[in-house]
């Protein structure tokens, strides 16, 4: 149980980490002082395999093929990446993509430091240099031109051209590129292009089978088997409602949230309402239905 808490992880790259301007030369140059060790996953993140994804990832890694993980939100994609980084003992650099993410956010840019320009690597270039795992989360959220940057890196060339410095980075053997996307709520606009997706080995994730999901909830929260089983059944009920009022059913992540609340002494119905029903929908009738479903179990 203790393992679940305070576990150091591969660090999420906050783009504020690459401060835009350091003009005052008195400031230490933090931007370049990023330490690779910061991104190492030192303790094993709990991960229960749903199928053969671990073997598949390892085989892809050995053969230097990039990986696409797809699946609904909260089913364990990011956790899987952390687990693989720990397994392969490589630093994990995660970038959460958003619709303003540009190519230079990934590759790097010049900054002005004390009257001089200085090049600072972006997370992708950094990952290539240190031979780490670079995980671009929700890749379709990024601008379309961004995805093109990863093309030469994602085929057998494994190159990252840095236009502004004229550098051509060749990825070391240990480097691996992974992207994720959720096919469920994508609009036509935000579909992954064939030219991008056909460079990857694709691993499909879905919500784990009931008994496995129960084990996960127990492990993550320390809750007893019976309540965890009920939580999993409740999740199943909300998943039945997908498409008839709910956009998505409750994810494993939400179950873990609810379970953690319960483990801290919150009453089950209250915990489910706060962590699951309210997180799923704002629609009053849907909320009532979800709360009734929860009440029928606890």
């Amino acid at each position: 149980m203790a393992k679940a808490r305070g576990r150091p992880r591969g660090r999420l790259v906050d783009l504020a980490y690459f401060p835009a301007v350091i003009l005052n030369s008195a400031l230490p140059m933090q931007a370049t002082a990023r330490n690779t060790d910061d991104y190492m996953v030192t303790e094993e993140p709990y991960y229960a395999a749903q199928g053969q994804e671990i073997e598949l990832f390892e085989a892809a890694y050995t053969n230097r093929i990039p990986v696409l993980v797809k699946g609904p939100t909260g089913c364990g994609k990011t956790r899987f990446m952390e687990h693989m980084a720990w397994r392969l003992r490589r630093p994990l650099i995660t970038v959460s993509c958003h619709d303003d993410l540009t190519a230079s956010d990934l590759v790097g840019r010049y900054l002005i430091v004390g009257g001089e320009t200085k090049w600072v690597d972006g997370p992708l270039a950094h990952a290539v240099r240190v031979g780490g795992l670079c995980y671009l989360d929700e890749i379709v959220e990024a601008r379309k031109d961004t995805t093109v940057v990863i093309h030469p890196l994602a085929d057998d060339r494994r190159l990252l051209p840095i236009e502004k410095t004229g550098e051509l980075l060749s990825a070391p053997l240990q480097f691996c590129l992974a992207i994720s996307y959720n096919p469920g709520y994508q609009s036509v606009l935000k579909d992954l292009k064939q030219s991008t997706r056909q460079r990857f080995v694709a691993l499909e994730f879905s919500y784990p089978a009931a008994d496995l999901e129960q084990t996960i909830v127990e492990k993550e929260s320390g809750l007893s088997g019976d309540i965890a089983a009920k939580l999993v059944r409740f999740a199943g009920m909300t998943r039945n409602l997908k498409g008839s009022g709910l956009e998505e059913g409750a994810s494993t992540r939400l179950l873990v949230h609810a379970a953690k609340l319960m483990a801290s002494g919150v009453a089950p119905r209250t915990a489910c309402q706060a962590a699951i029903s309210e997180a799923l929908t704002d629609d009053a009738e849907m909320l009532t239905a979800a709360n009734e479903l929860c009440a029928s179990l606890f």
Partner: protein
Amino acid sequence: MPDRPLTAEELEERLEDDLDPVLSTRRTAEGPALALARFTRAQQNFVLHWVSVIVKTNSEMGFQFASQVPIALDLMDIEEVEKWIIHAMDVYDKQGLYPGSRAFQAVEQYSCALSERVVGIGFEEVEVVLERFLRGLSGRPLKLIAGDRVFTDSERIFLPACLASLGSPGRNFSLYKAMASFLWAQTRYGTFRRGAEEPTALSARCDAYPQPERAQRLFEALEAIRLTACIERDLSGLYREMMSLQRELGQIVHPSSWSGALHRLRRRNATVRDSFEFLSELYSATDQIPQPYCFQGRMQLEAVESAMQERQLREKEKFRVALKRLVDGQPDTPVGVAQRSRLEMDQRPLEVLNEQGSKVLTVDGQPLIPPADMQALMRSIWQDFGEIPEAYLVPAGSAPYWVDNGGEGRFREDLVDGPRDDNAYVYNEWDYRRGHYRKDWCVLRETDVHPSDESFVEDTLTRYSALVGQLRRTFEALRGEDRLLKRQIDGSDIDLDAVVEASADMRAGMEMSERIFTKFNKSERNMAAVFMVDMSGSTKGWINDAEREALVLLCEALEVLGDRYAIYGFSGITRKQCCLYRIKRFGESYDNGVKRRITGIRPHDYTRMGVIIRHLTGLLRHIDARTKLLVTLSDGKPDDYDGYRGEYGVEDTRQALIEAKYEGVHPFCITIDTEAHAYLPRMYGAVNYVVIDEVRKLPLKVADIYRSLTS
């Protein structure tokens, strides 16, 4: 000082004006007028107002209202009376004059029910929540219907229209929920299930006893024991609630001779077969049958059997078609091999296999995972049989199959005159006189415009070739161009000019600017537009030509611009035959098909606009765009054969446009009706329309208007 009440004579005179068509020498307005004379002037005005509103729908309804309203005013306050009027008018809309008049006549029952509502709760208040609740509980979707008895036919659940037997609305809701859940449990835990080889229907089993009625009641009591135990195991919270309801309404005591049955039926592996065994045992052994549970209802075996029979036929075909699709879809399977493949199904009972997991199906030893819709179908078949019967495991032949998709709800047979099809949608319509919607009032169908092979598009392009070139250039300039923004706080590159300036500032001791970056700005036009084109009879001739030409030029311009757009034509005759003609959908490219459909636009019937706007708003809801536009090309007022004209049509259209605005859609109207100033501001707002005074200018203007609208 308040106005004095009207006298009976004055009232009679006023009523006669409105009710004239249904009055005769023997049927006068004297009675209602006398009865109304004792009310206050405000109440009298209220009545006179509503009489004049109702007679616009139907004069006889007006007379019925005038006759009953004195009683209503005695029993209820003004607000409740208004609800009673709306209720009766709804009945009239849906069922016609006689039920409508009866609803007015039943004013006393209505008022009684209303007072029950204080503690009670109505079906329509719980319907949506309970339907979702049951959907969540898994199994096949069950439709909830208000009826006078509590039972299920295994597809629909019938519940009372109103419940008031417990002390508070909350408790009565619990009772509704308990009833619905118990009936759900009958379908879920296999009360009606029988193996594929068992020929005996449930009703036949009961009929085999000398007193079938008593046998059925006994069977119901036994099943209630089994089902409540199932609910206790799987949904303990619900079980506690059901039992607390039962305690409130009187405990159920089982006779001592039932102890064996109680013990066995409560076991996990008990099935409906055990209930049958105890039925034959207890039928002769005991006279006592315990009271039914308060949520139990009465089984309607014939209804169940006919629903099941129909469903089984339907699902068998559906399953076999799905199976064929699944087997043929395998990469290694040549088409047609399906018939000879060896199919196996994991036949463990439903309870063992995970409800959300895939059921295991193997073809020639290869496991296959059925798609989600097929899994739902399999679950439904499982519920009926407890297995997938052998006869189902034969993929359908290659002949085209007609599979009825089982009334998914949007199709209302009673409303539709035309051919039955999947493209029928039902919409409400706003009646401004009543201040309420007429529910499920209009039926709309989508069809394609019949394409035409004339060379209209080419001719138009030739005729306007100069204009087309100009349009293209204007729209190109409008296209989202990438721009390099200078002096930004953050950006991909350094703005050297700004840096030089900033460092100079700094050296001079001034505060330096942070804005020293350049940023590449990609301005994407995030826009979706729907054009709805009037195809009513009045557009016949050159208006129609002008509309088509305008569309051709518009498409040329929009193709340059790259905005997403769709074009639909509309027309119709009466509320039951509103028609939306597809010309170009979102996502469809401007190809020959679209061009031929534009060419094929022909005038049809009338213009009922509200329903069209509601439908197109629905379409836009599914499009992800920052700006959504709904542009109407029209030649006149909303107008339809069955009274949809004048203020009524304008007000409904206005209401539909207000709904559209709530959804984030910007409506705009381009019209050639020179009198449009009289009504368009009311519908679209003062600035959201343009009147083009000459028809021949329409083609020249439309694209231009679109440009100024969106830039």
